[in-house]
C-alpha cells in the first residue's frame, strides 16, 4: 500500500517546474495573449531540451517512455505556470503513437515531436460542439482517401505540424484516427478569439484533403476513448496546478493586505473560504493521483475515474480561482493582476473534453444504471 508519487517522480517535477517557472509563468502567458501561438513555438525547444516532450515515446525515438502517472506532476507544473503550450496534446499523441502506431509512423513522427521540431495537437471537438468522433467523413475515390468536414476546439493549430483527428469512413463503416499535417492543400485553420488568450483554439476545416495510408493510425472508437481518458486526467492535473498556484498566492496576499487595522487574513470570512478551498485542492490531488494510476495501469476502471477526476478538478478550479479574485478585492479584478489569467484558464479547462455535468452523466450510466460490481469502492479496483 503506497499511495504516493515516487522520489524520482518528485525530482523530475522539481526540475521541470523550475524550467517552466523560468520560461513560462504569467509573463509568457501574457505574451501569448498578445502574440498568439508564436510564443509556444519558442517554448518547444526549451521543453525539448529538458526532455519534457519525450512523453510516451520510447528511448529508441529519443523519448523517455514514461507513463501518465510519471507525467502527472508535470501537468500540475504546467498548470502552476500557465504554460502556453499544448503539452497535454503532445503527451497523448506520443503515447498513442508509441503504443499503436506502425513502426514507420513512429519513425516518421516521434523523434520530430520529442525534439520540439514538430508540435502535435488534437482536434478535440466534433461538429455538435461536444467531444465525440463525428464531424469528418472519409471518402474514397480513384484510389485516394479524401477528408471532408469540420472539427472544433483544436489547440495551437496554427503552429502545429500534426493533428490527431477522428474520421468516420462510410466505406469501412467505422471510426479511425488520422494523424494529419494541417499545412497542406484542402485544410483550413479558422482561429477564434478565446477567453483564455494563452491557449489559442481554432476550427479545422477539411475541404477534401487527401490522406495517405501512413496517416491512418488505428481503427476504432476505443482509441479515442483512451485518448480522452489520458487527456482528462492530464487536464485535471493542470487544473489542480492552476488552482494551487493562485491559491498559494492568495493566501500570501491576505497575510499582508491590511484593512481595518490588520491583515484581512485574520477575518473568518477569509479564513473559512481558504480552508474550504484547501480541502477541495487536497481532495482533487488524491482523486487525480488515483485516476492517473488506474489509467497508466490500463485498468478498465480508468475511464470512469478519469471522468470523476476531471469533473471534480474542474469544479474545484473554477471555485478556487473565483474565490481568489474575491479575496484579492478590487486589485484581483484588474488586468495587471495575474489572478484573472488563472481564472480564465480554469474555466477554459473546465469546458474542454466534457463539461462536469456531461462527465457525471457518463459516470451515472455505469454507477446509477449499472450495478456496483464486486470490488467497487472497497479498495480493490483494478
Amino acid at each position, binding site marked *: 500500500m503506497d499511495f504516493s508519487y515516487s522520489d524520482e517522480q518528485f525530482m523530475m517535477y522539481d526540475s521541470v517546474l523550475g524550467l517552466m517557472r523560468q520560461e513560462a509563468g504569467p509573463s509568457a502567458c501574457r505574451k501569448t495573449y498578445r502574440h498568439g501561438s508564436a510564443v509556444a513555438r519558442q517554448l518547444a525547444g526549451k521543453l525539448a531540451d529538458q526532455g519534457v516532450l519525450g512523453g510516451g515515446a520510447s528511448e529508441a525515438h529519443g523519448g523517455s517512455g514514461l507513463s501518465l502517472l510519471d507525467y502527472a506532476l508535470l501537468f500540475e507544473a504546467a498548470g502552476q505556470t500557465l504554460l502556453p503550450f499544448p503539452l497535454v496534446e503532445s503527451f497523448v499523441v506520443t503515447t498513442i503513437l508509441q503504443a499503436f502506431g506502425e513502426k514507420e509512423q513512429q519513425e516518421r513522427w516521434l523523434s520530430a515531436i520529442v525534439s520540439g521540431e514538430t508540435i502535435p495537437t488534437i482536434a*478535440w*471537438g466534433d461538429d*455538435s*460542439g*461536444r*467531444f465525440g468522433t463525428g464531424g469528418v467523413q472519409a471518402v474514397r475515390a480513384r484510389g485516394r482517401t479524401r477528408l471532408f468536414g469540420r472539427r*472544433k*476546439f483544436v489547440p495551437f493549430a496554427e503552429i502545429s505540424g500534426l493533428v490527431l483527428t477522428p474520421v468516420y469512413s462510410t466505406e469501412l463503416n467505422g471510426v479511425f484516427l488520422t494523424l494529419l499535417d494541417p499545412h497542406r492543400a484542402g485544410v483550413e485553420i479558422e482561429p*477564434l*478569439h*478565446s*477567453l*483564455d488568450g494563452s*491557449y489559442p*483554439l481554432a*476550427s479545422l476545416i477539411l475541404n477534401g484533403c487527401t490522406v495517405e495510408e501512413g496517416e491512418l493510425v488505428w481503427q476504432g472508437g476505443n482509441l479515442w476513448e483512451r485518448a480522452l481518458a489520458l487527456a482528462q486526467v492530464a487536464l485535471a492535473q493542470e487544473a489542480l496546478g492552476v488552482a494551487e498556484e493562485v491559491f498559494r498566492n492568495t493566501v500570501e496576499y491576505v497575510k499582508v493586505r*491590511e*484593512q*481595518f*487595522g*490588520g491583515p*484581512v487574513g*485574520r*477575518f473568518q*470570512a*477569509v479564513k473559512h473560504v481558504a480552508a474550504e478551498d484547501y480541502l477541495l485542492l487536497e481532495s482533487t490531488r488524491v482523486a487525480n493521483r488515483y485516476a492517473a494510476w488506474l489509467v497508466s495501469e490500463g485498468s478498465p476502471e480508468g475511464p470512469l475515474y478519469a471522468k470523476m477526476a476531471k469533473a471534480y478538478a474542474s469544479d474545484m478550479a*473554477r471555485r478556487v480561482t*473565483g474565490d481568489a*479574485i*474575491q479575496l484579492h*478585492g*478590487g486589485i*484581483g*479584478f*484588474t*488586468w*495587471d*493582476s495575474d*489572478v*484573472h489569467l488563472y*481564472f*480564465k484558464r480554469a*474555466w*477554459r479547462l473546465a*469546458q*474542454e473534453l466534457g*463539461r*462536469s*455535468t*456531461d462527465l457525471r*452523466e*457518463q459516470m451515472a450510466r455505469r454507477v446509477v444504471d449499472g450495478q456496483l460490481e464486486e470490488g467497487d469502492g472497497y479498495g480493490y479496483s483494478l
Partner: protein
Amino acid sequence: MDIRFSSEHEAFRERVRAFLGEVLTEGWGTPTHPLPRSAQEQAEVGMWWERTVYEHGFAGLSWPREYGGQGLTWVEQVIFSEECARANAPAGVNGLGKGLLGPTLLVEGTEAQKKRFIPPLLAGEEIWCQGYSERNAGSDLASLNTRAVLEGDEWAITGQKIWTSNAHLADWCFVLARTDPTAPKHRGITFFLVPMHQPGVKVEPLVQLTGEAHFNSVTFDGARTPRENVVGPVNDGWRVANTILSFERGTTIIGRHAHYLREFETLLNAARQSLGENGPLARDSHYRQRLMQLWSEIEILRLHGYQVITQLQKRSRLGPEASMLKLYYSEMHKRLGELAMEVLGGAMPYVEGLESLAGGSLHRAFLWSRAETIFAGTSEIQKNVIAERVLGLPKDGRR
C-alpha cells in the same frame, strides 16, 4: 395590497415606449443589432443618451422640478428602467452623478449647491465621477489617505483615488479627503466637489480583467476647489457619504430585474441550442432546475423592487436592510454568468463570432459580475452590515 399599475402609470409607460421607439435606431436591442463595442463608441453613445433622456423629459423622474427634475415618483422611475432594459437602451455615463451625488446634494447640499449642480447634472452637461476608494482604502474606506488643506479660500487636495468609473469623461468629481489627520479615522473626513479640468488632476485608465478600461485612477496633486464646494460640515464627510448610502443601495435595484431578465432570455436561448449528454440542455433536468432557480431569483428581485418603492412611498426612506439587495443581486448575477458559461460548454472560450451562441453578451455578464461582488462594498462587507446593523450582532475585531 395592489400592485397593478394605474391607468396614469400605464399611459406613462406608453410614453416611454414611444420615446424609445423614436430615439433608438431600428432593430436596436435585438440580438442581431450591433451594439457599440469600443470604449470610445460606448462613451459617445452614453453621452448622447444622457442628453437625449433629458431633452425628452425623462431625467430625474422622481426629483423636484425646481432643480430640473420631473417631480414624479419612484413608480415612474421603475417603469422607465423596465422599459429601457427591455429595449436594451444604452447605459448613460452619469450613473454615479444621478445615483449617488444627486441624492446626496438633495439631502445634504446647500440651496446654492443644489441650484448650481443638479440641473447640469440632469441635463448631461456635467458628468460626475466618484473619488472614494484608494489603493489601501478599499473595504476599509475610512482609512483613506487623500489630504485636503485649506489655503485661503480654496482647498488643495492631494492623493490618489482608484476605481473611478468614467473619470476620463467627467467634469466633476465628488471626493472624500482627510481634513483632520489627528481625529479618529471616521471623524476627520470631508466631502468635496472638485472640478476635473485643472492642472492638478491626472486621470489614467485602469484596465480590468474584461480587457476594457472601465475604471481609472485619479491623482490629485494640489488640485483646487473653492471653499463653498464642501458638502455638509468640514470633518463630517463620513456621515454625509453614508447617510445616503443604504438609501442608494436600495434604489439602484429598481428596474434592474428587467436587465437580468433580458440576459436570462439570451441564456435560455443558448440552452435550447447547446447540447449535453441528453440533448439540448433546455431539456435536461439539471439545467432546467438551475434555470428555474435563477428565474425565481430574478423575479424575486423584481418583488424586492416593489417592496422598496412601497416603503419609499410610505416613509420616503429605507433602513439598513436595503444593504441586502446589493448582496442579493451581485451574487445572483455571478451565478447567472457561471451558469451561462457552463451552458456554452466547449464553445465557452469563444467570446466572439459564430461559434458563440450568445454573441458575447453572456461573457460580459460572466466577467463583469466578478467585480460586482467587490465594488461598492464587497459581499463580505454587506454581510457584516446586515449582521451588525439589522440583526444587532456584536462588532468583531475591525478597527
